[in-house]
């Protein structure tokens, strides 16, 4: 075989700005009450049973970074994405965007703020109206957020966006319908529509999960190019930890409604502290037949988010859990020894106990 002529995906250079974060999430909880009948509500006046989808989450996203939020299904990662955009109202806690408390904004202020934040979903076909042409779909957010634009100005912006997402020549595509283009191209349209109002934050919820391998890397490459071109900040929500490696600056790992570990991607992947993160990273299939897994897989299955385990939520499945400690004390995110901005919610691997182990008293 001749030497490889395949084109490589550009590695983006992120300019992460110092200063106040773009998004701050503080003590956020989201409970979805379970439907209970009339009789149950009569007899059960105390706490109403609820799915604790998000149960106390803190993090911030800095301007210009790609912040990953990863976890298995049911971990609460998508709910966090919706809370960040104020598409859901938190049961408790606050979300700040550019210093503004989203819970304090009037509906009108919130509507205006929406042009600065956008979301991209997994399934582009479900995100696009089949009766709208591609051009109409991309123009739609402009009609809402920039109603003063003339027809011609709008058309110009639509064509510019189509070009930016690699749909060339744009005039060939503007009048087509979603079913007339491929799945990968549809996701490009969804991205174009999200970017047309020049937002600062993009919440990308499994943006490439539906795409085939051979188109995935092109989509990732596009997202990273656009990030630099439009000065974007991404909240990248994914179950695919291998893909996250190529795009995220920092990553948070969620388990049962909590962040169990967060830090710079290289630090979290290179030396994971939380036993759950270790198992999760080790479980990811590696495209190399010689590779072998090294960690034991956690026992059993993820418990119900209606009645999560006491203490550390991972303790019933954890290989290093200490009874009397891990099943009692609820761990907060704490500094991982000898790390930089790397936190984990494990009583044994982070915080005072772990630090103590590093330097035993003489």
């Amino acid at each position: 075989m001749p030497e490889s002529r395949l084109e490589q995906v550009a590695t983006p250079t992120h300019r992460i700005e110092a200063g106040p974060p773009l998004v701050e999430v503080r003590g956020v909880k989201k409970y979805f009450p379970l439907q209970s009948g009339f009789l149950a509500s009569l007899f059960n006046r105390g706490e109403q049973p609820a799915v604790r989808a998000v149960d106390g989450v803190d993090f911030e996203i800095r301007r210009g970074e790609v912040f990953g939020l990863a976890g298995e299904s049911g971990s609460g990662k998508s709910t966090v994405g919706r809370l960040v955009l104020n598409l859901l109202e938190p049961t408790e806690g606050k979300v700040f965007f550019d210093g503004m408390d989203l819970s304090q904004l009037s509906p009108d202020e919130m509507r205006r703020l929406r042009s600065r934040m956008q979301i991209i979903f997994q399934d582009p076909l479900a995100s696009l109206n089949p009766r709208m042409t591609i051009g109409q779909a991309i123009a739609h957010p402009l009609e809402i957020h920039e109603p003063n634009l003339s027809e011609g100005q709008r058309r110009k912006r639509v064509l510019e966006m189509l070009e930016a997402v690699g749909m060339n020549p744009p005039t060939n595509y503007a009048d087509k319908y979603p079913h007339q283009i491929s799945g990968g191209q549809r996701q490009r349209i969804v991205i174009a529509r999200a970017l047309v109002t020049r937002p600062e934050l993009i919440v990308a919820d499994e943006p490439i999960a539906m795409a085939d391998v051979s188109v995935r890397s092109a989509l990732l490459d596009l997202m990273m190019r656009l990030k630099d071109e439009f000065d974007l900040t991404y909240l990248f929500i994914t179950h695919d930890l291998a893909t996250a490696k190529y795009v995220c600056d920092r990553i948070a790992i969620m388990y049962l409604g909590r962040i169990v570990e967060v830090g710079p991607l290289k630090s979290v992947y290179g030396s994971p502290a939380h036993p759950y993160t270790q198992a999760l990273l080790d479980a990811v299939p590696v495209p190399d037949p010689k590779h072998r897994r090294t960690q034991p897989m956690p026992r059993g299955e993820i418990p119900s988010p209606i009645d999560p385990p006491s203490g550390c939520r991972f303790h019933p499945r954890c290989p290093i859990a200490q009874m009397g400690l891990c099943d009692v004390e609820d761990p907060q995110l704490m500094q991982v020894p000898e790390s930089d901005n790397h936190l984990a919610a494990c009583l044994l691997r982070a915080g005072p106990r772990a630090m103590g182990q590093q330097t035993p008293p003489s």
Partner: protein
Amino acid sequence: MATSSDILYSVRNLTVEYETRHGVVKGVDNVSLDIRRGEILGLVGESGSGKSTLGKAMMRLRNGSARITSGELWFDGQNLMELSERQMRDLRGSRLGMVFQDPMTSLNPVQRIVEHLTETMLTHEPEWTEEEARARAEELVERLGIRRERVKDYPHQMSGGMRQRVMIALALALNCDLVIADEPTTSLDVIVEAKFLDLLKELRDEFNLTILLITHNIGVVAEVADRVAVMYAAKLVEIGDVNQVFEKPLHPYTEGLLKSVPNIELDSGALYKMEGSPPDLSSPPPGCRFHPRCPYMMEEVCPIYDPPFAPPEGASEDTRVACWLHHPHPQKVAIGA
């Protein structure tokens, strides 16, 4: 090299056609493939490559309007194309097992797991008593890591990973020779997936099970398969030992595919992006179907002549590839003559 007695299932020149609004489309186009006893053969391809259609055709199950229009299916010395529908039905489930992506659609939602298992066993093994079947069901389910008392559950009370294990239990209960597993881990989370893959390997070793693992997930193939077959646009483009294919892929599509798979290892190289997207099968490109996307395309050969699926020049029979880079091509022949 594999001898004929090592081969459990042999697909010969299989073509499957679909009726669509745009005319007849070949979902599987002249595919030949051998599965050896006791191996896990990974069949990879992107959506629309025809891998699921091939898997279903091997069971003589119809995928929508798909119809087998030519070819032979040899299973353990028997040509399945010559069997009656009734004989086929007896074979499916008893000797040919199936595991699909969503086990919820394979299980009856209003039937307890244990009833489903015993009923299926008794259908195929009428000489068993109900007690025997029930005992075997419980034993197998427990062997696969599900607590004995959970067999009384309904499918919706189980997790996706458990339901997938029940489907495998069924195949084992009936001593299937070959299990065709179509995207069995696609709806599972990675930890459950890892456990399921460990289980597949154990079962292969313990029960000498032969497994055709159809998947789009290259990592899954690397983890469990002994050999790998790669499908592109309704045709097989490469088959070989998993270590060999991953180390030195011969077909440019395989090469591109392997290099565009995200790898979680921090020291793995950069990601590659393949140009374009797979062709529309209602009008596939002439010659080699990959030529419009191929970085090694030879102008005077690849867009004109369809490459044979054969061992490359000077290599053993075990490896096959459909690419003119590895075969004497018509131009070479013309110049030589």
